[in-house]
């Protein structure tokens, strides 16, 4: 072998490398610029449309004003309801898979199912949700049917993320707790879940992003209009149909051509999603700082 090559120093930049870096750099810059342009465009066109009246009123066809408060409320209700279903089931499922299920086969079936579920286009969940929740369980087209459908959609993420978080808790903690006489359930409550909480919160936030952004499935199962403010209590309202912000955006953008409102909602959604992602980052940072 050539002597200069056998050392660890003397690494030369080859022309092919430089070219590759250049190409990759250009692509990255292009993608970044496009994203920024796209986001900026929506912000500029949308933020002007986000008015106090828009955010705090219902649409009024008589005086021809448009408001998205009903859609905001529907969105909040659906987020809340979906999380109420999905978090306990998802975290409980993850705990079960990780800590109790000792049949490898069962674990693999569950893992395979959750992975497959996460790859299915959302409209298929919509069709299923319509047939199963709206018709078979007779929940009609309603917020609760929407939340149940979304629960199935976000469960895989929550289960998988929670499972990863649980797996990351060191064996030595479990041993230490067992050595002091802790029952499994006590150990799960006092050691596992607190240590996995950042991961679980991250999963929840990502799920909220998914819920906020979902349109196709919800249009089918939860309804496509948000004209009125809720009249009854939370529990009465969730039996009614109603559309979320993303569904409203879809309608405004397509069927009515109300572009101003469409852009305003788009900007609002963008702000929400960016906010959610930032909070995930922050939690990640705190996790790293805390694990020291």
């Amino acid at each position, binding site marked *: 072998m050539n002597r200069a090559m056998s050392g660890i120093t003397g690494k030369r930049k080859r022309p092919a490398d430089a070219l590759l870096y250049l190409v990759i750099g250009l692509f990255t810059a292009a993608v970044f610029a496009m994203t920024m342009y796209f986001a900026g465009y929506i912000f500029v066109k949308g933020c002007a449309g986000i008015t106090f009246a828009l955010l705090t009123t219902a649409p009024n066809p008589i005086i021809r004003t448009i408001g998205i408060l009903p859609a905001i409320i529907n969105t909040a209700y659906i987020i809340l309801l979906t999380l109420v279903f999905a978090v306990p089931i998802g975290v409980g499922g993850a705990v079960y898979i990780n800590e109790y299920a*000792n049949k490898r086969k069962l674990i693999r079936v569950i893992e395979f199912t959750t992975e497959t579920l996460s790859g299915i286009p959302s409209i298929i969940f919509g069709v299923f949700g319509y047939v199963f929740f709206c018709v078979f369980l007779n929940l009609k087209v309603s917020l609760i049917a929407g939340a149940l459908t979304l629960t199935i959609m976000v469960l895989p993420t929550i289960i998988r993320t929670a499972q990863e978080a649980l797996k990351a808790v*060191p064996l*030595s*903690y479990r*041993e*230490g*707790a*067992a*050595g*002091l*006489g*802790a*029952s499994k359930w*006590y150990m799960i409550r*006092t*050691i596992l879940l*607190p*240590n996995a909480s950042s991961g679980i919160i991250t999963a929840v936030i990502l799920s909220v992003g998914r819920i906020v952004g979902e349109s196709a499935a919800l249009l089918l199962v939860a309804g496509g209009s948000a004209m009125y403010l809720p009249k009854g209590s939370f529990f009465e309202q969730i039996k009614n149909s109603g559309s979320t912000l993303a569904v409203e955006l879809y309608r405004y953008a397509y069927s009515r051509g109300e572009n101003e409102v469409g852009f305003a909602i788009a900007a609002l959604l963008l702000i929400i999603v960016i906010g959610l992602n930032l909070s995930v980052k922050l939690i990640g940072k705190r996790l790293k700082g*805390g*694990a*020291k």
Partner: protein
Amino acid sequence: MTKIVTENLHLHYGENHALRGINLNILTNKITALIGPSGCGKSTYLKTLNRMNDNVPNVKISGQVLLDSEDIYGGTVDVTKLRKKVGMVFQSPNPFPMSIYDNAAYGLRIHGVKKRLLIDEIVERSLRGAAIWDEVKDRLKTPALALSGGQQQRLCIARTLAVSPEVILMDEPTSALDPISTMKIEELMSELTKQYTVVIVTHNMQQAARISDYTAFFLLGEMIEYDETNRIFAAPKNPRTENYITGRFG
């Protein structure tokens, strides 16, 4: 006085016959050291004494372990209570990611102690007992993981002491520590025998000779020789024991 009697104890991990008919008596308020080459079953034996092997898949255990003449593998034994009596300190320090105070109080809370003042009192007593009180008394509410390795190990000992065990099992408790921390823990151990029965696994012959009253030599899943420590080290009866402690294999 005999604290633990082991009779014809066999343990299989699946096909692996890890303990092959162990007969061994652990004496009350003495330190018993378990020595032997890697993989000979010392940790496995230690864990059978507080049933830490129970959750290992495919494990099969036969024979008897009697704690104060009571069969710990008997049908009516409550593992939580057993582990309160027979505490364990692990090879690498494993304090929980919570405050020093909460670590020391963890076992008490498992066993249902709720009174704040009582917990305070026992936490202090255990931390003193583990010779770490002076170092941590001003920062009980700070994270245990910020302590040094040696301090963490002493905290783990305190955590075990807090539930007032009768027997303390230690699996190479100083192998991850520096000489000074090791010395502190060794001093602590001789202190502990006033109240507790201690069983310690160690790879360090000097350590076994320094601190233990009795020594058992394990080889390939069998207990080869057991005697007072000074006799084992001065005049082992079995040539395999002699080979091991003189460093001819292992």
